[in-house]
């Protein structure tokens, strides 16, 4: 959940289906009074078919652009684990496809990361954070990660 610059509330999650690889990402956008923001998606609700399952997080960049990301099941219903998928979304819920037909970015990771959230810093850089597990000589470790978007 985030509070946008114009005091809207954006909540993202998965449409419950009890079958994780068949769950549908869904984003709600509300006005400050709790009513649906009717200009976002369809009556304040936007579903995505680009990725499935996993944990969802959102952040707002400058100019009202929304970023929605998840650590994902891939389009074949397999838990990808080593990737985070990101979609850029305009204020009305339309996907920004200016950099590609799908408008989807894939951040390839290496350690089966579990994303806990995303942030945008004062330079409009995106920061992904979460944790992953590692096993060294039968000893399990819980590790944290933070990825910064390359600003170059």
């Amino acid at each position: 959940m985030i509070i946008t610059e114009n005091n809207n509330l954006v909540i993202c999650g998965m449409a419950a289906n009890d079958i994780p690889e068949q769950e549908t990402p869904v984003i709600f956008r509300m006005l400050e009074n709790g009513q649906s923001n009717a200009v976002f998606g369809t009556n304040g609700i936007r579903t995505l078919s680009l990725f499935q399952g996993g944990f969802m997080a959102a952040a707002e960049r400058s100019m009202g652009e929304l970023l929605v990301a998840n650590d994902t099941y891939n389009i074949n219903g397999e838990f990808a684990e080593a990737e985070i998928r990101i979609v850029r979304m305009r204020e009305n819920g339309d996907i920004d496809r200016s950099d590609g037909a799908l408008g989807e970015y894939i951040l390839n990771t290496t350690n089966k990361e579990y994303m806990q959230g995303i942030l945008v810093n004062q330079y409009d850089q995106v920061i992904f954070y979460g944790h992953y597990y590692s096993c060294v000589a039968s000893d399990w470790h819980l590790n944290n990660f933070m990825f910064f978007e390359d600003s170059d």
Partner: protein
Amino acid sequence: MQSFSQSIDPDFGINGTFQSKDAPLMTTRKVEVSVDGKIYALFSADFYASEDLAAKNGLYGVLYRLFPNGQIDNEFGTNGRVIIETTDL
């Protein structure tokens, strides 16, 4: 920088605590504070968390808005809360 009092403010909510009426089957997902100090608290739940939600099978979320003193802001949604149905948050 303001010092940390290391004690709970008894004037917040009821004796320093806000507990949704949908408890105890609710899981806190996220809490955000707006620039005017109002508190948004997002919970998620499975089945039958409270009597008035009993008919709602499946996963759903409940979003409350509180005043800075922990009282529910009844101008938000319906009686201070919005129910987000069929979503795993």
